């Protein structure tokens, strides 16, 4: 994907989302590395802090893709997190990660590979997560699942269509 395509996609998808009233939204913040060539890498951070002290944050990191594979960028790492907001804030005003504060769900690809954190268990790898491709996780579907969970109480496994196996 090219940076400007990504930015356009973000704007379109973001405009479809209806957030709860009185929440605090930060971003989506995007950062190309160069301009006007918009060379990768680029990043995106977006957070919503709810009135009850819960929040979600979505972070994506896109890296250069070799020209023989089409050039542009590919999403190498990301984290989608929903849980209790710690009082600390990063430079963007997004709640800083503090493991003392409960994580409800977190979907990640970092240097340890695709995994989720769910129901108090950390680093559940892809082979134990059925019917859901972590690599293909969509930030707006995640945000929608958060809003639906808050509205209906339906668990994330049902909302996102996955099963965690032992």
């Amino acid at each position: 994907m090219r940076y400007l395509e990504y930015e356009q996609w973000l704007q379109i998808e973001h405009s479809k989302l209806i957030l709860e009233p009185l929440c605090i939204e930060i971003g989506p913040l995007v950062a190309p590395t160069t301009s006007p060539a918009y060379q990768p890498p680029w990043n995106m951070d977006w957070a919503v802090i709810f009135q009850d002290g819960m929040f979600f944050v979505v972070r994506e990191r896109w890296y250069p893709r070799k020209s023989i594979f089409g050039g542009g960028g590919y999403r190498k790492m990301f984290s989608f997190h929903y849980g209790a907001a710690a009082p600390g804030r990063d430079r963007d005003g997004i709640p800083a990660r503090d493991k003392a504060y409960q994580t409800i769900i977190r979907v990640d690809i970092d240097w340890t590979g695709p995994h989720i954190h769910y129901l108090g268990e950390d680093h559940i790898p892809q082979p134990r997560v059925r019917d859901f491709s972590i690599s293909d996780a969509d930030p707006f579907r995640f945000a929608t699942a958060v809003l639906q969970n808050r509205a209906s109480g339906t668990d994330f496994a049902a909302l996102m269509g996955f099963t965690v196996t032992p």
Partner: protein
Amino acid sequence: MSLQRRCLPTIGAVSLQLGELEHRYGLTSDVFVLHDFRSSHVDEDDGMEWLYLIEQLRVLREAAVGDLYSTGAESGPLENQDSSPEQFAA
């Protein structure tokens, strides 16, 4: 809220952010990448940001070197480019 572009990164700003992470964890970036990062206790978000900043710095340095060696280039080093934030309506 609408989509917002951050300021364009500069080599100096990215280096400063890397230095903050190195100081926080008591690791140099070389050690983090080459030796320790798979087994380190670096927070996942910090680690993701750390690796991203290293990649960003690599690209910025390559672009700066390209500018130095190019002839008739219209723009100077990346640090001198416009870094004003841009706001977009969603």
